[in-house]
């Protein structure tokens, strides 16, 4: 099966174009499952769509564009981990349930200590993915000894939780040893890639809303969009966004991007998102600092995306170290 980037984008915009920004969580989750987007990168042998990173990138970017709630990124990580567990007897059944929308969640923190923080929609999840370099496992929801603590974030488009398990149970082991290390690395790269896509979609949407606003808002007998001081700021945003988008698609189809490559991409994309969302509030003036307008939703999601998955300091340093080792005359 093959779908172009443009076809996926069209499908997503048709599906979510009507619902507006930050759509209803339950309805949109059902729609995501119906449209088959959770099976995007699942191999066809496992009843998935077998589409690659470019397709996943298109979907995450569309989710970012509409400020999609829900655990889509975490769910895709759980599904990816399950798909790698070749010898697991219940694998196919679990994947089928996950693709149908049964919530299986994971941490988006990017931390490597195996603690479960920043877990979206943990209150309605049936399974929890636990990733460490030594072991990747799936922990079922337990009636006793499990603690799910809601952590209210400034960003209200996502719902994050801390999760602890009292009994040090193993859960369902998906990978161990060298296989776990490789899988953990791949899952981290996918998380970073998904956050980058989400950020670029969001950045594009809020930039467009800002341009629209400048076109209609009139002061001094002319639209604000006529002032060169503002046009140049908008043009700079468009330029950094376009370059980062080009990098995103280049890395999506690169043969073997390293974790540092994906981290640097995520750092770049979230920094651009944050900068555009900050400018958007400023350029909207008074209305931008009210809850009535959507600006703040983008700003808060952008800030959260900066913090999730490891921040720009960490990934820029990693990219610098990698380039220092590679760049030899």
């Amino acid at each position: 099966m093959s779908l172009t980037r443009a076809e996926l984008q069209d499908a997503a915009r048709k599906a979510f174009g009507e619902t507006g920004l930050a759509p209803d969580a339950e309805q949109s989750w059902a729609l995501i499952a119906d449209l088959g987007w959770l099976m995007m990168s699942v191999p066809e042998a496992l009843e998935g769509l077998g589409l690659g990173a470019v397709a996943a990138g298109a979907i995450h970017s569309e989710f970012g564009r509409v400020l999609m709630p829900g655990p889509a990124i975490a769910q895709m990580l759980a599904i990816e981990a399950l798909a790698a567990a070749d010898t697991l007897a219940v694998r196919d059944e679990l994947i089928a349930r996950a693709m149908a929308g049964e919530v299986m969640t994971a941490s988006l923190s990017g931390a490597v200590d195996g603690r479960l923080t920043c877990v979206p929609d943990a209150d309605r999840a049936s399974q929890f993915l636990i990733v460490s370099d030594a072991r990747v496992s799936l922990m079922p929801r337990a009636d006793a000894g499990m603690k799910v603590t809601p952590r209210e974030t400034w960003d209200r488009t996502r719902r994050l939780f801390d999760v602890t398990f009292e009994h040090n149970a193993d859960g369902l082991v998906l990978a161990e040893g060298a296989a776990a290390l490789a899988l953990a690395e791949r899952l981290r790269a996918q998380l970073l890639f998904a956050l980058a896509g989400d950020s670029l979609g969001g950045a594009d949407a809020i930039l467009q809303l800002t341009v629209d606003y400048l076109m209609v808002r009139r002061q001094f007998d002319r639209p604000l969009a006529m002032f060169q001081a503002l046009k140049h700021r908008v043009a700079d945003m468009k330029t950094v966004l376009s370059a980062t988008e080009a990098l995103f698609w280049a890395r999506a189809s690169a043969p073997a991007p390293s974790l540092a490559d994906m981290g640097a991409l995520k750092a770049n994309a979230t920094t651009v998102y944050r900068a555009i969302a900050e400018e958007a509030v400023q350029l909207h003036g008074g209305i931008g600092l009210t809850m009535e307008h959507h600006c703040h939703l983008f700003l808060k999601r952008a800030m959260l995306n900066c913090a999730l998955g490891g921040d720009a300091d960490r990934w820029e340093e990693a990219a610098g170290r990698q380039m220092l080792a590679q760049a030899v005359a």
Partner: protein
Amino acid sequence: MTEALEKLRQEVRTWLEANAPRNWRETCTSHEAFLDTQRSWFAKLVEGGYGVPHWPAEWPGGGRSLAEQKVIYEEFARADTPRLLLSFMSTYHAASTLFEWGSEAQQRKYIPRILQGEIWCQGFSEPNAGSDLAGLRTRAERRGDVYVVNGQKLWSTMGQFADKCLLLVRTSDERAKQAGLTYLLLDLKTKGVTARPIRQIHGDEEFAELFLDDVEVPVEDRLGKEGQGWAVAQSTLSSERGLTLLELSARLRGSLWRLAALIRDAGREADPGVLRDFGRLATKIDATVAIADQFLATRIAGEERVGDASLVKLTYSRTLRDFTSLGIRLGGMEAQYHAPIVFGGGMETGNWMADFMNSYAWTIAGGSDEIQRNIIAERLLGMPREPKNWTLAGDVA
């Protein structure tokens, strides 16, 4: 596909090992040495079939796909060959304008000479027509079979060494200012032409001023119709913004080792601040390469929008500024001691102050960053132009 490219890469690499000029960075400290190196290197490239990979297939050396061109440029950057500064305007600006607008006779006359080393420069800007190019005032008056040209041109890259000039002149003051322009092909050996080099802030003289005093240009050397000059000039300008940036961004990527060497020499391999800035820059360079790639793919597919080229140029110019800036910072006091420049050394020579100052060539020349921002805002984002009329206090529009 990938296999064929890998084969080409090996071919180019082997060819470069045998043919790439060596030690030119040490020897190119005079204009004479620079000209020698540039001429012989271009001749060698043409002979080897790598001089004009971006030309259409019907011309010798042309017909390379986008992917093949990229491989060739990457290998040039890797082998640190001299950039083709002297023949740059000839193989890009002159050639692509001739391909698009030249009659068959004009193409047959001028294109083969480019391969033989004829040098073209561009006569567009004037002292009072920089960003407002269409306001240029150099006049051409038709007298029988010739145009008689009077005026002054500025920022002609390599103008003092050139044989021919792509000349934009005013043939009419009626109607819109763009509609009064005409495009001529000027032989710089014609009586009445004086070229004077301009010394730039880093010490090189890459540009010249041209003075035109009753210069006669045969009517047959007009490109397009009279009054069509603005449209013809657009193909000249877009050739620079498109293809060139593919090569330049590959060169920038290939020059990261210079900064890496500085970091190692200064013993700052573990300095997180330095590593972050270096990592951020490397990522920005990858993004610059990616947007240049994407732009060319879009152009080849015939889907280019007005303003796309501006995105690439603005991305490159800012990234180059960041690159040279980090070089100065890491170079510390050492970068402040004056070192002679390498003529034709390209945008990244490791002479950091010189490179930094030279990077202004990209934020100002070929349409300044500010003009690119206007184009992006107005053409890509649909924001309105500023009103044309203006008043000073007391004046009436």
